[in-house]
């Protein structure tokens, strides 16, 4: 009893500061959640996940080291492959240095997806299962945005630097090649970055739509498996599929239905120009298709996401 008394006396001391809540505070109806708000929230996510990563330093460095190791082994593997052959596929133009532009692009995309998208897609699935999604639904901000970016696994970004380095180095070798030097200008860089963005958007949409299905399935732990399958297909130049019935079938499936073959192929093609000089019609066609595919997959992902939210049941209290 004495204990309770004590807490009561020093608890909730009346302060004069507390004012009555204004009924319909002025301007609250007119508040818009504009781009600046999204930028500030995104920045907070970046900050918070960085602080969090620093909190577990040893873990952070271990993850960096392990992913860098994997990447280096990947490089060594292809170095060995190129001791047996000069190019990937016949007359495709994917020689060693061209292919290393492709490989570096794969690393860049994979690392960005694993840093920004995968942890959140995975977490989204978990939010649904545990009912924690409730809180995201309460916030006056787009729910898809809110669940897409809160967690970032910064250690996965190590490969981004390796990828950028490999791309720059390989492009340097290609441009200084005496026989058939690669033309290189600002246009290449702009288009490359643009189509990297498209590729990321496609993969993001596929992952988020997959994760959203957890709302109907109750649990969807196939995300990482699925991601593994995807990476197995998109990490090769698409020419290797273009022969035989099954090859063409896979190519069609992963170009037009689940357009993941466009993700790495298009930016890498634009930068490395395997069929030099200049971009051939095929490259332009693929680029056009990529822009279209980006819009369509994003729209589909949005639709699936909204439909999923409408049937969200919220796990028990």
């Amino acid at each position, binding site marked *: 009893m004495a*204990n*309770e008394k004590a*807490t*009561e006396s*020093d*608890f*909730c*001391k*009346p*302060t004069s*500061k*507390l*004012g*009555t*809540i204004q*009924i319909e*505070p002025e301007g*609250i*109806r007119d*508040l818009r*959640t504009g781009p600046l*708000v999204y930028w*500030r*929230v995104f920045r*907070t*996510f970046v*900050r*918070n996940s960085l*602080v*969090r990563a620093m*909190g*577990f330093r040893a873990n952070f460095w271990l993850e960096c080291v392990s992913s860098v190791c994997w990447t280096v082994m990947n490089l060594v593997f292809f170095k060995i492959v190129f001791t047996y052959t000069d190019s990937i596929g016949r007359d495709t133009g994917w020689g060693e240095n061209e292919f290393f532009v492709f490989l570096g692009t794969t690393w860049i995309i994979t690392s960005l997806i694993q840093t920004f998208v995968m942890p959140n897609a995975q977490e989204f699935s978990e939010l649904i299962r*545990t*009912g*924690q999604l*409730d*809180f995201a*639904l*309460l*916030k*006056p*901000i787009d*729910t898809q945005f*809110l669940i897409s970016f809160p967690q970032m696994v910064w250690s996965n970004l190590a490969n981004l630097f390796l990828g950028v380095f490999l791309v720059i180095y390989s492009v340097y070798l290609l441009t200084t090649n005496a026989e058939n030097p690669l033309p290189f200008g600002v246009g290449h860089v702009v288009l490359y970055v643009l189509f990297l963005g498209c590729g990321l958007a496609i993969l993001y949409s596929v992952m988020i739509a997959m994760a959203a299905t957890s709302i109907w399935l109750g649990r969807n732990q196939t995300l990482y498996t699925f991601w593994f399958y995807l990476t197995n297909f998109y990490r090769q130049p698409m020419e290797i599929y273009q022969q035989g019935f099954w090859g063409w079938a896979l190519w069609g499936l992963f170009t037009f239905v689940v357009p993941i073959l466009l993700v790495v192929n298009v930016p890498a093609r634009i930068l490395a120009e395997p069929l030099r000089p200049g971009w051939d019609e095929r490259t332009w066609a693929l680029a056009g298709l990529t822009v279209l595919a980006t819009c369509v997959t994003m729209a589909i992902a949005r639709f699936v996401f909204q439909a999923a939210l*409408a*049937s*969200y*049941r*919220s796990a*028990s*209290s």
Partner: protein
Amino acid sequence: MPLIEIEKLSKHYQVYQKQEGLWASVRGLFHRQYRRVTALDGIDLKVERGEFVAFLGPNGAGKTTTLKILSGVIHPTSGTCRVMDYVPWQRVNAYRRRFALVMGQKNQLWWDLPAQESFRLHQHIYQIPADQFQATRDELVDLLGLGKLLRQPVRELSLGERMKMELTAALLHRPEILFLDEPTIGLDVVAQHNIQQFLKHYQEARRITILLTSHYMKDIEALCQRVVIINEGRIQFDGSLAEIVGQFHQERIVSLRLGNSNGIDDLSQFGRVTRLQPPQVQLRIPRAQVTSSLAEILNRYQVDDVSVSDPPLEEVFAHLFTRGKSDIKETADSGTAAASDSAASDSAASSAGVVRR
């Protein structure tokens, strides 16, 4: 116009029925049996601005479902609901800026980070101006005594401290309506008491509207003027605590300390003797006869001390909830005393009939 207006709100779930055994599980992969569960069965409710309303009911009665619909987390199966002129499940940003939901069983703060970081995120999401954010936060932190804990990772806070942080996070944008789902669950007496004190103080000072669900009668006794009892998805009673006790419990408890034990056995003529440990005696006497019986007792016995109290609320509710629906129907027509509240509906009247037997 009422702040919250609910009409004929229902919510049904399809729940997958898992069969026992391996073979049945395999069959379940292809053909599933579902059971329809009714969480809410057509409730009507009106809440005015500035009210502090408690939802009370056993587990699975539909309390949390109601709060989730009101906050737009889930869609109802049928019925209408308007809160501040918004339809909650349309999830309009303008509406979402004006209320908050706190759940005792779910945590919305970043687990590995100090609560301060989550507060900052809220500041940006709700677009709270920096000076207002700081003032509100400092005031809440001050009231809840959280000063030193702001920099500690949330995972290292005690349950009580975490709950206070959750409340702070929810109130930063100064919501006009606060939905609280079992905010004191699992807390010790002191922490419970602290949170009650805070809510009481805050609600009185700010005149915000609070809807609370709780299992702890202490919460409800301390805080709410109005109690809505939900059972099996229906509202059984809507009125004040005093009314509940008055209507649903026909007895009061009279505790006596006697100077001697002469004629102690005759006390049973006044009511049910529930404890007999001379010199202490406890009796349950019908409400209407308490005054006359007490006069008589004081006259006939040497009484050193006497107190009269209502039965504990837990008992009242346990009594209420264990009544089946069939009971209600049987006795509905005999129910005369309805809740005097404006919302005295059929269900309230019928549940009044429950205890009239």
